[in-house]
């Protein structure tokens, strides 16, 4: 039997208790603040998807003013930094394999002659696409570079060569051609990822900690209902989650200049629903776990697919259908769409509503399971 009558005084008592314990547990508290900041800085800076000054080697089979102009144009784009000049293809291969350079630019013999004839000589650019996101922007910049590289040379009688198509045919070799994700796209998504991890883990640990320490037996022998325990235990983490959102938004705005186009209030409301769904999921997990270690394992069991299938790591529409169906169940999937919509596109209530109700449904279902699972006895 589930007793849905709530004595708010008891809920508050559990809540106050959780706050006190949270405050005593300095390490956890530091983690709750430190992890989001660390992730944000790592994802935002270290995992920079618009890297510049990528190490580049050149293999020049002909050295004249035209080849020099092209190489200057490459460097001026700030994507390429030429740091070595090679003699043969074998060297080029080696440089790429060892990761010493990201690009090798090969300028073939007869380049200048073909250029002046208007024969569109081929230029080979080999890209180390191990980290595709790292090179995509540099590659994308090539078109503009090749169009403008010879402005100074193509004057007078040669001016006709300025007309499209570009005077050079740039051939790009790479393993695969990825979709690029910008910082603007990642940082709002990080709000969801960070919240998912910290909220589920923290709440999954609270109830199992009581089981492990033997305090659950005491709690059960007192007149406090499962719903009261659940609400009281979950409330401090909801507050903490909202605090995390604030910290991330401020950091995102100060460090990365992410513009927040839409309504902040709406963003926080959406975050509140999302946080609630996660803390209830964490609480439900804790009713299955017998030890804190199991609770941690369960958290990761949930966390990994969440990261992979929500559209945070890979473009959602690029996933196979079955993965998309799974992804639709996850709160993070819907939260990412809402947050990106609000932050970057300035979406309002009307646009986000279709994404909000699946999270609410998830919240109700998971909360219900938690209440059914929370044992009123030690049987």
């Amino acid at each position, binding site marked *: 039997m589930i*007793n849905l009558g709530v*004595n708010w*005084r*008891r809920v*508050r*008592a*559990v809540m*106050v*208790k959780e706050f*006190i*314990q949270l405050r*005593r*547990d300095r390490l956890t508290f530091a983690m709750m603040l430190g992890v989001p900041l660390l992730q944000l800085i790592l994802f935002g800076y270290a995992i920079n998807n618009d890297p510049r000054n990528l190490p580049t080697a050149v293999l020049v089979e002909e050295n004249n003013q035209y080849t020099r102009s092209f190489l200057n144009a490459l460097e001026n784009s700030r994507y390429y930094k030429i740091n070595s000049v090679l003699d043969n293809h074998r060297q080029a291969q080696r440089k790429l394999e060892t990761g010493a350079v990201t690009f090798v630019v090969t300028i073939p013999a007869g380049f200048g002659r073909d250029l002046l004839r208007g024969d569109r000589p081929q230029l080979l650019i080999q890209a180390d696409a191990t980290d595709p996101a790292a090179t995509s922007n540099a590659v994308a910049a090539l078109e503009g570079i090749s169009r403008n590289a010879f402005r100074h040379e193509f004057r007078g009688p040669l001016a006709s060569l300025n007309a499209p198509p570009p005077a050079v045919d740039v051939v790009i070799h790479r393993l695969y051609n990825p979709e690029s994700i910008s910082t603007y796209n990642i940082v709002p998504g990080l709000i969801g990822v960070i919240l998912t991890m910290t909220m589920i883990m923290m709440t999954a640990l609270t109830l199992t900690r009581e089981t492990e*320490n*033997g*305090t*659950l*037996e*005491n709690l*059960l*022998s*007192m*007149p*406090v209902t499962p719903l009261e325990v659940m609400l009281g235990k979950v409330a401090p983490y909801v507050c903490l989650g909202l605090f995390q959102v604030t910290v991330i938004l401020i950091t995102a705005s100060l460090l990365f200049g992410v513009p927040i186009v839409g309504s902040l209030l709406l963003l926080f409301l959406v975050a509140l629903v999302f946080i609630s769904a996660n803390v209830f999921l964490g609480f439900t997990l804790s009713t299955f776990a017998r030890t804190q270690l199991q609770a941690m394992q369960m958290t990761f069991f949930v966390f990994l697919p969440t990261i992979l299938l929500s559209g945070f790591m890979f473009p959602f529409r690029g996933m196979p259908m079955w993965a998309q169906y799974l992804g639709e169940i996850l709160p993070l999937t819907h939260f990412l769409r809402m947050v990106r919509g609000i932050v970057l596109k300035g979406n309002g209530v009307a646009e986000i509503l279709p994404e909000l109700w699946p999270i609410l449904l998830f919240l109700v279902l998971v909360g219900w399971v938690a209440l059914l699972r929370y044992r*009123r*006895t*030690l*049987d």
Partner: protein
Amino acid sequence: MPETTPTPVIEVKDLVKKFDGKTVVNGVSIHVNEGEIVGFLGPNGSGKTTTIRLMCGLLTPDSGSGQCLGYDITTQSEKIRQQIGYMTQKFSFYEDMTVVENLDFVGELYGLANRARRVNDMMAQFGLTPRRQQVVGTLSGGWKQRLALAASVIHTPKLLLLDEPTAGVDPNARREFWDRIHDLASKGLTVLVSTHYIDEAERCHRVIYVSDGQVVTRGTADEIIDQANLSTWVVRGDNLETLAHALEKRPEVRQVARFGRSLHVLGTDAARLDALAEDLRDDPDHDWQRADTTLEDVLIDLGARNDRAAAP
């Protein structure tokens, strides 16, 4: 004990509880009257803790029924929770919270009308006031036990269930603890306390002895001694260990209990034991004296009987 028919506070019949097919409580019936202090004794694993948990609704019995404070133990455990105090075997308050924070928490859960004052009263009564701001994890065993008792009576329960409350606590603290229990009982609180200590059993109005999930004997200390029907001789002297070994082989001797400078020799047939004593008391090294059988003798005998039964 009052002359009028006492109100039963606990009245449970034929409780059975199995865990994974193993019967831990096997048809236990318990009757406890208002204001009584009842000791619940028995070896480890005899089902004491499980029985206590059944009575406060923390476990549901596989069969059997009963009432606790007039409420059905299977269907009305919510009501029971309001009016009982339960002190678990393992300390189960929050070690990362202070004394006053723990008491505040418990007081709030019971919805005490004047919680702050009650918490202060309890701290004063249990001598916890100087340690009110101390984090519980840093308290010694005796202080933790005091806190646990204070927390389990903060809501003035009608029934107090204590599961080995004094395990690991020094003799002074134990004594003090029992004085408090008697004080509380004199004000009408009913107490069921499980224990391993014989001196604690003697402090109870009545004793229930369980073994292997069944009640073996029950009654006041005198009744239990009478029921046991044992006669006792005390032997003092030297070389007692050799004598003890010899006596243990005699059929008329049921039990030899060793004390520092003496042996308690127990037998069920008083005449035969007396005859044995008459034979042996000529030895000048040993001084034989007839003695009253104590509760301790009986409980040692009950424990030994349990060991014999368990032996392969």
